[in-house]
């Protein structure tokens, strides 16, 4: 996969969240707080966001890494790092 910019990764992540919780007001997210809580994304919704991310970006997230996805910035940074380690 060609190298994706941080913006593209971020937009993709947001679209994956919106596919599960379309009502989410992403613009009003507080970056220092967990996004799931603010957007009322429950455990089942969260798993569907992960499924969408895997489909779109080819990154599957093991359960032990969930804590790195707590904030939106953390989620984007995690995806960026994982995409960087995948050989092109």
């Amino acid at each position: 996969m060609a190298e994706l910019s941080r913006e593209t990764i971020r937009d993709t992540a947001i679209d994956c969240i919106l596919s599960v919780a379309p009502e989410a007001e992403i613009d009003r997210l507080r970056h220092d707080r967990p996004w799931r809580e603010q957007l009322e994304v429950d455990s089942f919704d969260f798993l569907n966001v992960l499924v969408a991310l895997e489909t779109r970006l080819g990154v599957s997230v093991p359960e032990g890494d969930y804590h790195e996805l707590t904030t939106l910035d953390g989620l984007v940074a995690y995806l960026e790092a994982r995409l960087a380690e995948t050989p092109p």
Partner: protein
Amino acid sequence: MEVLRKSRSEVRAAVMDDYSRRCAGFSWGEARGWLDGLPGGAGLNIAHEAVDRHATGTQGERTALRWLGKQGRQRDISYRELASLSSRFANVLGELGVPPGAGVFLLAGRIPELYVAVLGALKHTAVVTPLFSAFGPEPIVTRMTLGEGRVLVTTASLYRRKIAPIRDRLGALEHVLVVRDDDGELPEDTHDLVARLDAASDVYTIPATDDETPALLHFTSGTTGKPKGALHVHQAVVAHYATARFALDLRPEDIYWCTADPGWVTGTSYGIIAPLCIGATLVVDEAEFDAEHWYDVLESEGVTVWYTAPTAIRMMMRGGSERARSRRYPALRFIASVGEPLNPQAVHWGVEAFGLPIHDNWWQTETGGIMIANFASLDIRPGAMGKPLPGIQAGVLRHLPDGGVEEVTRYGEEGELALRVGWPSMFRTYLNEDARYRRCFVDGWYLTGDLVRRDPEDYYWFVGRADDMIKSAGHLIGPFEVESALMEHPAVAEVGVIGKPDPVIGEIVKAFVALKPGFVSDESLRRELLGFARRRLGPAVAPKEIDIQSSLPRTRSGKIMRRLLKARELGLPEGDTSTLESAR
């Protein structure tokens, strides 16, 4: 059939070490004698049994509640302190002029003030309704209107997000008590709960409380019409206490963790009342589910008895047992589960991950307490609901053409699970819907709406629901409530909502929608409908999937055929809906 045997030492160590003898010699009158009653023979009050009677002497210094906050904060509240705080809350209600019997609603995450308010309101003999904080505005309005909520306890952030926009629709609401959890000002027309508690006296004498005094109002969904408010009375505490001993093996020295939110009946009956009545230490974890975090809590808090749910167990199973096994749980003694049938693999997974099998049990909002269980002292039949509790007579009923019922006598034959009326935590009515209440009873039986089979050893096995109710993540969701919300969208002509089987959460809510002329089915409209439903209903009730179709199947009388939608979804032949037919 496969059976998980219990050793003789396990049997001997159980609170109830001889099931048959306990059943034979048991009466609810005896169980009532295990409680203290109000001083001076002034009756029976749940909050006195839960808190005040443990609050004096050295017992009072024991930890009643250990709160684990989201940001790693921790707060221990002793029985003495909980008695004092709940008395303060009762006094706040008194100062506000809230009369006994008034509806006190709670909408909050698992914060200490929620527990204080529940117990304080029970002291004041108000009627308590905890609402799930993931409810959207519509479920909140419906329930607060039906329950005539005069007082609401919530947080500032939930108030701003969910209550302020609908406050003018809450006609009965007089007082809002708010816990300030953000940096904003105190919302207009609310009281600062913590400030009120600080200013109130911590001396409160519980008024005389009759056994039949209303105590708790829990809402449960109906297959048609609005949710039903199942009303429970103070006498229910007799069952809470006895069933926690029998089915959860709970004792005063236990560190107990019930993972259910108080917004659902389990989180109140067994997440607040029963463990405190026993005198145990209650672990309250504010955070949402996260497998790693849960293993942490079990290990670091030294949890001894853990009451959880199949959805959570199956979510943990997805990650494999290695992560669970990398910890040590020397204190953990008993695991139980409730909410929906626990599949045999999950029972075994408990052994693999924690060295302990998981004991499934069964009950409903209406029953108020555990009715059928796998017990510490009995062998487990993985996949079975278990056996009736002492004091509970269960039956499998067949419906007769004349409207009567008869017991199915052959083992393995399917029928509706019913319970002989007369246990203390049985609901006393559906609020303002007595006819609907009376329809639940035939010939001295309470009809549960669940289809079961009984095996020759008297274990009960869940087969399915007798109606269209959806069981998602252990919670009953009525299709009608979801359909009504979606019907409000201008593009929607008709809606049918079903439970679609899901390996993790049991069933997901799935909506089938037909559009009005002029609207085009595409991804953006699908998302709009999904967001529309989530905003109104909240994620706990809203559909997880929406399928737009050109039209929906209807009966001749015009009712949407949910069963046919479900047959199609499951890939069954359309003509063959026999496996989905109702038993009634």
